[in-house]
Structures are given as C-alpha cells and as structure tokens.
C-alpha cells in the first residue's frame, strides 16, 4: 500500500498551516502549494483505488484505537470512488482558478486557495470518516470554508448569499448535533459501523425522529427541496469555479452522508421511498424554476439542484442498479456541471448581473469555450453520444426494473424542460447577435486546459462508458453490502 487514507486529511491541513509562512517568503507558493496538495490527493486516491480493488477495503484507525473507541477512516470502493472524483475536481478547480485570481491582492488570493483546499479536504473527510461526530466536524469545515469562499468577491452581493447559507447551515448543524446525541444516548457509540450493528436495539420512535433530524441537517448541504433556498444565491455570487466546486464536491459529500445513513446506519425500508419523494419534488421544482431564469449561473444552479434530486431518486430505488445509476449520475454531474460552470463564467465574464442574454453571439468571440459549453449542455440533457446519456439510461433502466413506470414518465417529462432551457442558451451563443460593446475575456491557458480536460472526459465516457463502469459496479456492490462494511470496520486487527 502506498500511503494511507489519513493523508487525505493530514497533508492538506499541514499545507494549510504552512502556506501562511511560505507566503511571507515566496508569494507564488500560496497558489502552487494547494495545487500540489490537490494533485497529491488525486494521485493518492488513484493508487489506493488500485490497492482496494485487489485487497479489499482499507480501514485506517486514528491514534491506534480500534474502531468503537477511536475514529476510523474507511477507504472502500464506494468511498474511494467518491474521493477520487472529488479530488480530481478539486484539482481541476484549482487549475482553472490558478490565474483567475491573479488580479486579486495577495492576501485574499492566499485565503481563496487555502479555503478551496480545505473545502476539498472537508468533503473528502465527510466521505472517508467512519464516525458520525467526526462527520459533523468535517461538515462544519466544509460549511465555513464555503461561507468564506462564497463571500470572496467583496463587490458582489456575495455576503447576502453567504449569510443565507450560514443561516441554514447553522440551523442544520444544531439539528445534526441533536440527532447525534439521540443516537449516542441510546447506543453509547458514535462509530457508524457500531451504530449500524446495534441499531435494532434502538426504540423505533427515537430511530424515526433521529433520522428526521439527520435528513434535515444533511439536506441543507445536499440541497433538497425546501432547504435549498441558499444554493442558487451561493452559486450565483461565489466565484465561478467555486460554483463548480459546490456542485461537484460539496453536494456529493452531503449526498454521500445521507446515503450512508439510509443504506448503512438505519434499517428502514421506507427511507428509500422518502428518498424518492424528496428527490422527485426537488427535481420537479428545481427544473421548472430553472426554466424561467434569466441569469446564467442561477439557471445552472437550479439545474444542478435538479440533478441532485435525480441522484436522490436513483438512490431511492434501492437496488444495486439504482446505486450504480446514482453513482454514474454523480460522476457525470460533477464533470459536466463543472464544465458548464467553468465555460459559463467566461461567457458572462465582466458582466454585472450575468444575464443569459449576455451570452449572445459569444460563439464568434470565444469559440472553444462556446463549443465546450455546448458539449456540456448536450451532455447534461442526456443526448447521446455524450456521457450524460449513459447515466440517464442507467437511472431509467433501474427504475424500470423496479416497476416504477410513473416515475420514469415524470423524469422524462421534466427532462424535456431541461433540454429547453439549455438549448435556449446554446441558441443564443451561436445565433444571436452580440449587442453590447463590453469586452470579452479570453480564457487563460490554465483555465482552457481544465475545461478541455473535462470536455474530453465527457466525450470519452460518452463513447466508452466502460472506462468507469468497473469502478461504479464495485462501488455499488460495496454500498449494498452493509454486513461487510460492519465486519470490515469492527474486526480490524490493528
């Protein structure tokens, strides 16, 4: 084994503490070190994934105490897949914003990169940790770096967005604590595997209520319907790449948390139906709202929320095919939505309100960015031969196998709306005339590389989905096998 899961947390934190010191000596180090760390995390996740696929789950304990006592990190095919995805996106976001922040002062740019790095770290921590209170701590890390990143631009209305986020986040974290305490008071443990094992001992009423509090708390980050008021504002006001980071990293971590609760910790069958209901409402409301947006980033934000609803639906199907589909959707959504945010923020660069009409005629001025945006739009609509098609097909197949005919119909009808609003933008890019005289910003070389990387992934996965389907399949098997998770964690011989 090369390295260990704990390095996913230790190295970025070490770097975060070192950066203020090195920044005094060499100013560029504050930009470069986070990139190196994120690249390291990505490389580490790949090497660990290789190890995991041969030798099975890695359970890493902290401070040498076996799981019920100490905190443990679990690097299984499932968590490892998400880690790989998140760290990759984190690196892409860094690459994209490497020069983007050049015109910003030294101190804010240092803060930006530290916060970005810790945002990724926190999300990875949520995914890897095997302890619910530790998960709470990581959720707070993600939240606070999210608040900081959202309000990065002092000239926008970003503080308003960040405050809404913080308001919801604070309420959520309170209820998360209550839920954790209810479980602790009944079972006397905080370890997820241990809780899962002892869960049948718990009183049914308390079980229901604690799950309710958990759903409220994690739902805020997972952007499920009535709790996602903050999300569009944050996506709009945060710097462009951070929107991608939220859509691709933070929300994924939150979805992971809720999935871990329902699939591993609790033993309710009805929770899956709840997932479907919540996901469906989120999906419908978000997509219909996105249809009527006049600002680009807001539209992307609602679309992102809607996609997360779809992921919830896929997880709610509850079969292995459903999990496979959900993971595939998460992967695609992370890649494609990042591509859209990246290219979209150059299409409306320097415009105050980022109206959709500002993209008019950009196909002539920013050809590559426009093409990438178009590819992203087509992919997220689910048109073949782009990658979005395969995930949509997987969701529908999984739903059909579970005989959910009406669900399929609703998903497809709403998908038409999605197609409409994306194509409206694409039409504007190519077939409308640019009216205003404002300057367009050519993407810097690093941003272009990041976008092209994502675009290539979209195309490659579209033509050859088997590149990742092995990972997805193993991850889905891993998530469905609750007993194995408990066994792996509790019987570690360290």
């Amino acid at each position, binding site marked *: 084994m090369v390295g260990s899961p704990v390095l996913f947390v230790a190295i970025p934190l070490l770097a975060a503490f070192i950066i203020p010191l090195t920044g005094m000596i060499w100013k560029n180090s504050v930009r470069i070190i986070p990139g190196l760390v994120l690249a390291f995390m990505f490389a580490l996740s790949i090497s660990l994934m290789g190890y995991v696929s041969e030798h099975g789950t890695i359970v890493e304990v902290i401070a040498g105490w076996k799981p019920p006592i100490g905190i443990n990190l679990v690097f299984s095919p499932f968590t490892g897949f998400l880690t790989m995805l998140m760290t990759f996106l984190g690196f892409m976001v860094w690459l994209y914003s490497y020069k983007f922040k050049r015109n910003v002062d030294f101190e804010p740019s240092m803060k930006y990169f530290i*916060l970005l790095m810790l945002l990724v770290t926190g999300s990875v921590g949520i995914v890897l940790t095997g302890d619910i209170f530790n998960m709470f*701590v990581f959720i*707070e890390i993600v939240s606070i*770096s999210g608040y900081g990143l959202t309000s990065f631009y002092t000239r926008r209305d970003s503080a308003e967005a960040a405050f809404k986020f913080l308001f919801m986040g604070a309420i959520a974290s309170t209820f998360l604590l209550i839920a954790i305490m209810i479980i602790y008071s009944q079972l006397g443990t905080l370890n997820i595997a241990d809780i899962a094992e002892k869960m049948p001992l718990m009183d049914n009423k308390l079980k229901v209520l604690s799950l309710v509090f958990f759903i409220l708390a994690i739902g805020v980050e997972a952007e499920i319907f009535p709790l996602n008021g903050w999300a569009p504002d944050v996506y709009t006001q945060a710097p462009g790449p951070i929107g991608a980071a939220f859509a691709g990293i933070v929300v994924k971590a939150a979805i992971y948390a809720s999935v871990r609760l329902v699939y591993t910790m609790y033993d309710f069958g009805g929770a899956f139906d709840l997932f479907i209901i919540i996901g469906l409402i989120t999906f419908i409301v978000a997509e219909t709202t996105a249809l009527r947006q006049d600002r680009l980033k807001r539209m992307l934000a609602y679309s992102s929320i809607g996609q997360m609803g779809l992921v919830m639906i896929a997880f709610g199907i509850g079969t292995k095919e459903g999990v496979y589909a959900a993971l595939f959707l998460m992967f695609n959504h992370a890649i494609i939505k990042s591509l859209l945010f990246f290219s979209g923020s150059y299409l409306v660069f320097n415009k105050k309100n980022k109206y959709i009409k500002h993209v008019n005629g950009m196909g002539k001025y920013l050809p590559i960015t426009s093409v990438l945006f178009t590819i992203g739009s087509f992919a997220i609509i689910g048109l073949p031969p782009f990658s979005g098609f395969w995930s949509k097909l997987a969701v529908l197949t999984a739903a059909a196998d579970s005989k959910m005919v009406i669900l399929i119909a609703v998903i497809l009808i709403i998908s038409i709306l999605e197609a409409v609003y994306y194509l409206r933008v694409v039409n504007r890019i190519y077939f409308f005339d640019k009216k205003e005289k404002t300057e367009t910003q050519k993407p810097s070389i690093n941003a272009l590389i990041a976008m092209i990387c994502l675009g290539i992934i979209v195309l490659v996965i579209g033509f050859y989905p088997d590149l990742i389907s092995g990972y997805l399949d193993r991850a889905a098997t891993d998530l469905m096998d609750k007993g194995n998770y408990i066994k792996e964690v509790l019987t570690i011989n360290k």
Partner: protein
Amino acid sequence: MKIAIILISLGILGFYLMDIFFGIGFGVQHFSNGVKDLYLSNSKDILKVSNVVTSIVVNFRGFDTLGEVTVLFLASTALGGILYKKRHHVGERSVLFPASRIVMSGAKLLFPSIVLLGAYVFIHGHLSPGGGFQGGTIIATGFLLMLLTYRNYSVSHNRLVYFESLAGILFISIGLVGYFSKGSFLENVLPVGNMNDLFSGGVIGIIYIAVGFKVAAELTGIIYTVLHEKD
C-alpha cells in the same frame, strides 16, 4: 400569519423534542456496552491521563480536535477574507471611549496574570479541568482586555501567523510522527509516565500546548480583525 405558523411549528417541534428527551430520561444511562467505560478504563490504564475529557479530546478523538482547530483556522481565514479591504489602517481603532487611567493600569497588571493562568490551564490540561481550548481562550481574553483598553495596542500580525502556523504544524507533525513510527496517525510515541504526573499521557500534553497556542493566536486574530473593522 407568519408568526402564527412559526409559533405552531415551534410548538410541535418543542413537543417532539420534549417527548424524545423525557423518554431518554435524565441522570440514567441507557446503553450497557457503550464506549464510555472503554474510554474511562483506557484513559486510566493505558494513557495514564487523569482528565478523561482531555484524553478523549486529544487522543481517542484527536481527529475531531484537529478538525476543530481547522475550523477555527478557517473561521479566522474566512473572516479575514470577508472583511478584507484594500487599505490597511493599522493603528486606527473603533473603541469609542478612551479608557480611564485606572482601567489602563489595572489592565496592565492583569494581563500577565491572565496569560499565566491561560498557560497554566493548558499545560495542566491532562491533570485538571481545562486544556488547550480553555487556556487558549483565556489568553485571548487577556489580549482582548489589552486591545479594549489601549487605543494603540496592536498585535503583530506576522507574529500571530507564526504562532498559529507553527502550532498547527506541530500538531500535525506529532500526528505524522505517530503515523510513521507506530503506523497510526496521532498515536502516542512518548512514554506515558505516571498518573497525576505533569509528564504523563505521552504526546497529549504537547498536543494540548500546541492547541493552546493555536487557539490563542487564532482567537486573538479574529478579535483583532473584527475590532479593526471600521467604516
């Protein structure tokens, strides 16, 4: 209307919460084989730390503490970002009334003792109530006193950064030393000593001191940033 909805929903929420917690009961323990006893006995027998809360915070659940320190670090970073303005105005302050001479000299007298108290609290974190957080906070309140009293009292920003970063690096390095020598992050690498001894508990004392410095520096930094925020 809105208020009525809120009151009704709060009422229902309160009802459910009370229902839950009366069910749980006060002063009784529901679980038989929880981790509590393991923590108590391990803390006593293996770590030789008398304050069990400290051993939990620093060792058993040291990862939480690392996260917590990171949260503070993030808060001060985010705060600096949120309130960042281009012009630096060191020396200007927003405290409205100049302090009286009595307060000034009193503060001067109190400040060393507050710092000393804080240092004591975090050094003895594994023996008595208190520890890095408490001690760090106490030191920060000492700086707060000075900042409030003296119009031109300024804390060197760089020095705060040094303390903050070095303490953080120390914490993680200890963890990494444990990882590389014993195979597990934050694992104890020093002899544990005897119970109720100042030098007991292995790395716990060192980590708590690092945490103390870090928390003190971060909280001071936060207050300093907010305090110098003026239109």
